[in-house]
């Protein structure tokens, strides 16, 4: 395997890790405020459909992006209403949102486009183009001519969609907001001990809604990326379990932003390797592609089993907050 092949796998790792990363950060915001979110998958799927559908009809990917984010935020609002206002079970609400998105996207797609539950193929101006950084070579023949540093620059660093760079920026932004601002401190406190935050005269409900809505925006970005950058249009169930892999990454990262980046890159790498090689030959042993697909889930179970440190979730996670009267 030559250097350029390795770079190509890493390049596709970054592409495949981006939706995971955005969804994982969404889960991080929500769960840090004490709201479990297993509806990441559904929000991502809804955003994928609406971004593709609106981008196709409006002919502009940016309007599509806004529509995707709006759809995801509507579902986030529903999750907030169920789990904050009506103090329902957050997990059941998440399950309902996943099914709602899985069903509604196909039903609406069939009504709008009559193509069996998918959107038409998006033309190039309804998709996010790849950003070519200055001085980067774009053709594979030119890249192969460059030195190692040039190859890294042209193949790995340059040539992603704008959302990839945005997602990478959101990691330090999330870290800064959660650990270096008053809002972040309060938000984390709401996830650990909401009664204390309430006693200090700060609205638990307001903070939790804020966190859930931020998660909605991030899931919207993830979904829009899937349908308008990674692919050219929406197909049924295109999120394909990525919301749950993001959840796995979140646990793997123990609810911390920088670790979330590494976990998502790792899981993206598994995906990239699984895509490129069907079965991997390790000496006598053949690693089947299904094993690579299941690896993120297996790793999480290992982490949860306490074999690699201990994953401690925010203490008030999943508990509706009842103000004492």
């Amino acid at each position, binding site marked *: 395997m030559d250097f350029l092949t390795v770079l190509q796998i890493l390049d596709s790792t970054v592409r495949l890790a981006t939706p995971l990363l955005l969804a994982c950060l969404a889960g991080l915001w929500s769960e840090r405020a004490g709201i479990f979110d297993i509806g990441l998958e559904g929000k991502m799927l809804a955003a994928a459909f609406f971004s593709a559908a609106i981008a196709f009809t409006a002919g502009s990917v940016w309007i599509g992006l806004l529509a995707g984010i709006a759809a995801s935020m509507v579902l986030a609002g529903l999750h907030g209403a169920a789990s904050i206002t009506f103090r329902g079970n957050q997990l059941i609400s998440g399950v309902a949102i996943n099914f709602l998105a899985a069903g509604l996207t196909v039903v609406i797609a069939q009504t709008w486009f009559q193509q069996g539950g998918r959107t038409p193929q998006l033309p190039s101006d309804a998709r996010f183009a790849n950003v070519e950084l200055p001085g980067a070579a774009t053709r594979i023949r030119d890249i192969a001519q460059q030195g190692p540093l040039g190859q890294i620059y042209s193949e790995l660093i340059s040539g992603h969609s704008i959302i990839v760079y945005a997602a990478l920026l959101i990691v330090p932004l999330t870290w800064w907001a959660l650990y270096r601002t008053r809002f972040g401190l309060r938000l984390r406190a709401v996830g650990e001990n909401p009664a204390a935050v309430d006693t200090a005269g700060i609205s638990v409900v307001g903070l939790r809604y804020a966190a859930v809505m931020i998660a909605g925006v991030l899931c919207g970005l993830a979904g829009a990326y899937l349908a308008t950058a990674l692919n050219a249009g929406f197909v049924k169930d295109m999120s394909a379990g990525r919301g749950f892999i993001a959840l*796995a990454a979140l646990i793997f990262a123990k609810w911390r932003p920088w670790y979330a980046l590494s976990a998502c890159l790792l899981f993206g790498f598994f995906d990239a390797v699984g895509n490129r090689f069907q079965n991997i030959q390790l000496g006598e042993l053949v690693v089947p592609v299904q094993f690579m697909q299941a690896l993120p889930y297996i790793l999480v179970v290992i982490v949860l089993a306490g074999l690699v440190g201990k994953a401690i979730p925010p203490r008030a996670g999943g508990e509706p907050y009842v103000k004492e009267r």
Partner: protein
Amino acid sequence: MDKMPKWADIILIPLISVVLALVVSGLVVALIGESPWRAMQVMVQGAFGSAYGWGYTLYYATNFIFTGLAVAVAFHARLFNIGGEGQAAIGGLGVAIILLGVAWPHWTIALLAAILFSAAFGAAWAAVPAYLQAKRGSHIVITTIMFNYIASALLVYLLVNVFRVEGSMAPESARFAEATNLPTASDFAGFLGFGTSAPLNFAFFIALLACVGVWLLIWKTRLGYEIRAFGQSQTAAVYAGINPTKIIMITMLISGGLAGMMAINVVMGEAERLVLDFVEGAGFVGIAVALMGRSHPVGVVLAALLFGALYQGGAELQFEMPAISREMVVVIQALVILFTGALDNMVRMPMESLFLSLRRRREAGQSQTPAE
């Protein structure tokens, strides 16, 4: 003092929630420009209008009884088993192993073996999440979701590499021997008009038996009492000498076993071989069924019947009204989960205040009479 009479809690509130879910579904149908009334008619006619329809409705209901009971049993211990999907898939693996591995002389013994193996395999798949919950406190919802995906990858691998018939491209096992085939509805209830195409089979009775079994277990045995006590209050249960590890383990093993037994209906009864993705979301429907049925076997049977009808009616809907996609059923299912599960308090709070004000008025009326 209860805020509401018991009948309101177990009948009225679920009913209102389901009606709300159906009304919203009707709105969705109206929004995509079709008539909700006609859609409803087509679905009811498709599900209940013929022996053919009943054959499918009850077949689907059989699946949902198993997975619904699985979720319901876990709910009693306040455990949320979202892994029915994976446990059923692995249960199917157990059925395939025992039916392909042994030359069974008659379907009755084969059925007993299949029940044992499907339940054991399903339970085994629930054992690791249960252990992690009991010993490590890692959330059972997360681990069971992970195990769903691991099960699906494992099943694909085994079907492609181990079970696949030599020379065939289809990822499915060989057909089970003729002798192990369960009697279908046309065999035991042909007089009711069931044709040979109806997938309804003997597993339906196993599902009903399982309901009786779960009812006995939860309300008539010491273990059931412990499970319910643990679900009501973990700390109180521990002070009463109930071992939490034991309760979590046993409850999840029973839950996983019930989910695994779904494979008897699909793998042994209908497909008569192990096929890819045979669970088809039934594990998740079980969540809606258990929520709607208030985790009681009778409620589970009724809810399973409703969802069986939805699935069969939804299939008919696709033929009669092509503008409505089959996924409409998934939307209805989601709305039922949303209203009966997550938004329960939205219905409950106004109902509680309604009953409270009714009672207050009645008490006020009584206290005024002697004064006059």
